[in-house]
């Protein structure tokens, strides 16, 4: 990349905005995914009794099963949320930056 291009993009206010927004958003989602997964793992490790509880009195299905399925679903939903925001906000900002500097 040309040095003048670097300084042009660097000084572009939209670039600062993109950088800040995307960085924060990515790490928040990373944190949420880790919290969900490791929360689940900690339950498995320390509170097996919680996961063993049936979901209803007349059921043998344990809380652990829907919870596990929810962890799987959350992985998909979080990637969906990221895609949705990136396709909108981030791509719009990127397009504007590119239009201005090129």
């Amino acid at each position, binding site marked *: *990349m040309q*040095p003048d*291009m*670097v300084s042009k*993009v*660097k000084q572009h206010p939209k*670039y600062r905005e*993109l*950088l800040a927004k*995307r960085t924060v958003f*990515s*790490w928040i*989602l*990373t944190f949420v*995914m*880790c919290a*969900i*997964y*490791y929360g*689940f*793992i*900690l339950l*498995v*490790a*320390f509170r*097996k009794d919680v*996961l*063993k509880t049936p979901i209803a009195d007349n*059921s*043998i*299905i*344990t809380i*652990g*099963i829907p919870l*596990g*399925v929810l*962890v*799987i*679903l959350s*992985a*998909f939903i*979080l*990637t*969906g949320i*990221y*895609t949705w925001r*990136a*396709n909108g906000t981030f*791509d719009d900002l*990127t397009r504007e*930056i*590119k239009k201005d*500097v*090129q």
Partner: protein
Amino acid sequence: MRNITLFGLITALLLSVSTVFGAGGDLGQVQKQGVNLSAILMFLVFVGGTLGITYWAAKRTKTAKDFYTAGGGITGFQNGLAIAGDFMSAASFLGFSAMVYNKGYDGLIFSISGLVGWPIVMFLMAEQLRNLGKYTFADVVTYRLEPTPIRSMAACGSLVTVLLYLIAQMVGAGQLIQLLFGLEYWIAVVLVGVLMILYVTFGGMLATTWVQITKAVLLLSGATFMAFMVMYKYGFSFEALFTQATVVHKDKLAILAPGGLVSDPLSTISMGLGWMFGTAGLPHILMRFFTVSDAKEARKSVLYATGFIGYFYLLIFVIGFGAIVMVSTNPEYLADAAKGTLKGGGNMPAVHLAHAVGGDIFLGFISAVAFATILAVVSGLTLAGATSVSHDLYANVFRRGRANEADEMKVSKYATFALGILAIILGIQFEKQNVGFMVFLAFNVAASANFPVLLLSVYWSKLTTRGAFIGGFVGLISAVALMIIGPTIWEETLGFPKGSALIQYKYPTIFSMTLGFVAIWFFSITDKSARAQVDKDAFEAQNIRCQTGIGAEGAVSH
């Protein structure tokens, strides 16, 4: 081309229809001959189809870019399916369903751990890789760091990961095919090796991608059908399925909750780290992000891949429970009814269930799909390994970036051939070994060596060549060493007495990955060399390309 995939789909559909009517009632004696024949026929159809794909792809594979990344013209949806195809290995289809079959709920924990790495790949890696890289993840790491040492290091990490994964797949392939098709072990291994050499050498990434897609569609349809038939039998009531499973399983109610798999939390978290961040460091997976045209398609790839893989793991859970109720109770599938051991060994629940729900023809179909799965995964691995050799080691280290494209292509083809032969030899050598640990070892190396270097090269402006080089090797060596002195290899594989392992952690990722990160950090911040300044100064420009895609590699149109 489209016709070939369509043909596979139609075959799958026809099979499902014919078996729906054939299911139910006593399945009677297994006719060994018939089973083999339908399996072999369907497998031949798959091989014929994929060789057709390879022929088609070969005509479109002319440049290095075509060979390594299919010209960068794969769509997000196609790439998502191909990634899912890469990730849904025979080990996860047969191994995870066997784990559910044996341990119930614990198998689900494994599946979840396998999936949660994907969102992380999405949030931190996918677009960044696409914007910065060209053919391998080493391209990303060497964007601002000194190419020669860092490429050598990244290539080591890649090749170790690829080889370990490859051995596990080859041994699995040999055993599976021996069992399902009645072929000799070595013939099966040679067959897999030869086919994968053909796909990769002639068809490159384009053929590999379409083999993955075909296989992903077949595997997803097959697994969907199996789960559907299980649920159909139980009136689509999980309550009924689980109740019956707890009645027939030796662990009774315990299979519906976490059991002994997770004995201590540190070990579990460590295992989770290995699966999660290992996913973000597997060279054959990372390479897939260079096959799409831009960051947007890279993003879509992960979304679709996560969806397909998550769906697949949910099916595996149902399939595992289905096998508990329909396989473990049927003497036809048991080698020793008193011990409850299965014919063909511990990885067979899903295969026997295929027979239980769909008869000989569906068993043949699932066997062919399992074989296809292995073929597709080893092709992806071999391509990643060959690219590491030709693009990283040959063109950029050995020839210092001055190799011409024709030579690089030639080397990549020799490398494919050599890796294929090596995989065959190692596959035969390791026949009698327990190679189950190798998949985790591969993930462990990926998480401890490849991932930290990659992550910090993208995000940390103060990373220097010295830090990445030393840290990468610290991660790699500790990932391997800690596994060797741990219980899985020391006791179970090398046969030292129980309890004699130097560390009692089966999953050492938490230590090796931390060591990797700390070493990178320490040797970067203490690095006062002139090169360190160059590395840091180049971050700004790298970050601009990484964030905006300005100057990124585009797609070529054909």
